């Protein structure tokens, strides 16, 4: 069993309520932070911890905090990004639903460190039942003196508000989220200025993912140095992985980033192997945006080394032979899955979610969907595959926000690693409608552990 810092108490009956959470030692990190530490020393501990943003980008959280501007007389804000919308990702939902007070504890400490008196949780609109859970937890925390005025006699005031989005993947991008929080369409802003200088209502703002903020609690408890000892290299601490697709045990797992991908998929502690005893075909290891990897490159790097569930190892080989940790949305595809169809559903997703601001993304995502649809329906031509490649290349890097990249990468990786399957669809327009390409990519049988 690996180290658990976030979900160690998840199975305690009633942990969702204040009384049980407090009895289990909850809010002692707030006590420590507010009484024994000051904003600077808290930021310092988070820096030392090496905690990287858990939303997908992996940017060092402590560094992000240290960028916040502090102009005289201007309020600052912390915003919790709970817009979790990356296909394959459902870890923040789990944290908020089952451990709402853990998130609040992290939020109070971070608000204190950043000087935010009004902190907002922006949660995706579809998680419609979770704001009730969070608001109940906020009321409990307030009734017990952890929120409101003059918390623990420190003179620090803090209120936490929950705002629902209304169905827009783009609002997970921090500047689009801020626009949405201001009551507008979720069109990302051009950076700079970064939110740390001009964010919500043009005030200095830090936007952090739910899991990132929850991780602040163990960091305060154990200290940044101790936290950094867990994991490996720049992948410090623990990471929540939401595993889904054709596996025996889908769900949310906390890992300490030293587990191998193979163990993660096949061991009973985690995914429990491929459903129905089938073979592994491919996997999207970090949410739908990151490159899909064929089984052979997933389990071992191009150099033949074991691949591990951490930032460095998952990206080993760059996009040529590697992928990314991303949001931790781990999507497993078995031998019966069609890569063209899977890529089509993702292309449709990005076309649907493009905000329409930048032409390459607005137009390109629609073109990619149409061409993939054509190939999937057995009406494609060989030149369509090159055209797809060309379009994705012209979107990537040419848009205001990373949605353009996120839309390009899945298409690029699918063609890069599974070009023969696309060609098979073109060459076999009828057969491809009733049968699938299976594991023909693999000259050698895929390694399956005993």
């Amino acid at each position, binding site marked *: 069993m690996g180290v658990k810092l976030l979900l160690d108490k998840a199975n305690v009956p009633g942990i969702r309520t204040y009384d049980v959470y407090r009895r289990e030692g909850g809010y002692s990190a707030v006590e420590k932070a507010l009484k024994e530490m000051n904003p600077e020393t808290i930021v310092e501990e988070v820096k030392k911890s090496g905690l990287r943003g858990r939303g997908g980008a992996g940017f060092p959280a402590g560094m992000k905090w240290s960028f916040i501007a502090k102009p005289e007389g201007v309020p600052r804000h912390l915003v919790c990004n709970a817009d979790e919308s990356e296909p394959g990702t459902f870890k923040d939902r789990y944290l908020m639903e089952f451990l709402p007070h853990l998130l609040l504890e992290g939020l109070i400490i971070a608000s204190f460190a950043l000087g935010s008196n009004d902190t907002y949780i922006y949660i995706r609109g579809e998680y419609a039942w979770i704001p009730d859970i969070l608001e109940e937890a906020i009321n409990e925390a307030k009734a017990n003196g952890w929120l409101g005025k003059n918390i623990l006699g420190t003179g620090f005031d803090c209120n936490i508000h929950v705002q629902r989005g*209304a169905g*827009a993947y783009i609002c997970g991008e921090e500047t689009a989220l801020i626009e949405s929080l*201001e009551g507008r369409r*979720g069109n990302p802003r051009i950076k700079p200025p970064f939110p740390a200088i001009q964010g919500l*209502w043009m005030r200095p703002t830090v936007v952090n993912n739910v899991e990132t903020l929850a991780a602040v609690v163990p960091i305060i408890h154990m200290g940044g140095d101790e936290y950094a000892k867990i994991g490996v290299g720049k992948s410090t601490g623990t990471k929540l992985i939401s595993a889904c697709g054709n596996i025996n045990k889908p769900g949310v797992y906390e890992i300490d980033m030293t587990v191998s991908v193979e163990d993660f998929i096949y061991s009973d502690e985690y995914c429990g192997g491929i459903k129905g005893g089938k073979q592994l075909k491919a996997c999207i290891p970090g949410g*739908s945006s990151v490159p899909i990897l064929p089984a052979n490159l997933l389990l071992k790097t191009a150099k033949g080394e074991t691949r591990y569930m951490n930032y460095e190892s998952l990206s080993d080989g760059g996009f040529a032979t590697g992928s990314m940790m991303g949001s931790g949305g781990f999507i497993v595809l078995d031998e019966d899955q069609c890569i063209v169809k899977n890529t089509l559903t993702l292309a449709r997703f990005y076309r*649907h979610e493009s905000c329409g601001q930048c032409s390459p993304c607005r137009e390109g995502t629609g073109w990619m969907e149409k061409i993939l649809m054509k190939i999937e329906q057995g009406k494609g031509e060989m030149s369509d595959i090159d055209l797809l490649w060309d379009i994705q290349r012209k979107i990537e890097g040419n848009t205001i926000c990373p949605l353009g990249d996120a839309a390009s990468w899945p298409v690029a990786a699918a063609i890069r690693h599974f070009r023969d399957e696309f060609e098979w669809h073109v060459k076999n327009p009828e057969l491809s409608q009733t049968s699938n390409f299976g594991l023909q990519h693999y000259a050698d049988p895929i390694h399956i552990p005993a």
Partner: protein
Amino acid sequence: MGMQFNEIQMTEFKRLVARYPEGKQKSALLPALHLAQESFDGWLSVETMDYIASLLNIEPIEVYEVASFYSMYNLKPVGKFVFEVCQTGPCMISGSDNIIDYIKQTLDIKPGETTKDGVFTLKLVECLGACGYAPMMQVGKIYKEHLTKEKVDAIIAEYRQLAASKN
């Protein structure tokens, strides 16, 4: 002027606005539209949007452009219950196509349509963050997960009964 919030709804509206600093009441627009949609038959008419604009003291166009951007706001009338079935990658590889076909067949409607009795609307949606519990759909505030044909039958029966008891 047709629709207006009743007293309870108005109290909730005021609570939403109070979360934001003085002069930033426009920030309450998204939650206010959710409240309006719940209060007025599950969709936002132009009249409703104009009403929200007047309450927040903003231009109607500021409401229209937001309401048309976000996928959860219905700009046309919908049935009493909307089945929003996820069709994105993780649900697709877990068999959502079969579930969608089965719902279409059982309710005899296409995506975007409402049953003749006005009870159900079928909507295909993109990833709702329930990938580990796929296939799934959302009905109102609730997620229905691990869907099978039998489960779909039971859900339809459940909401039919609820609709009948509301009449």
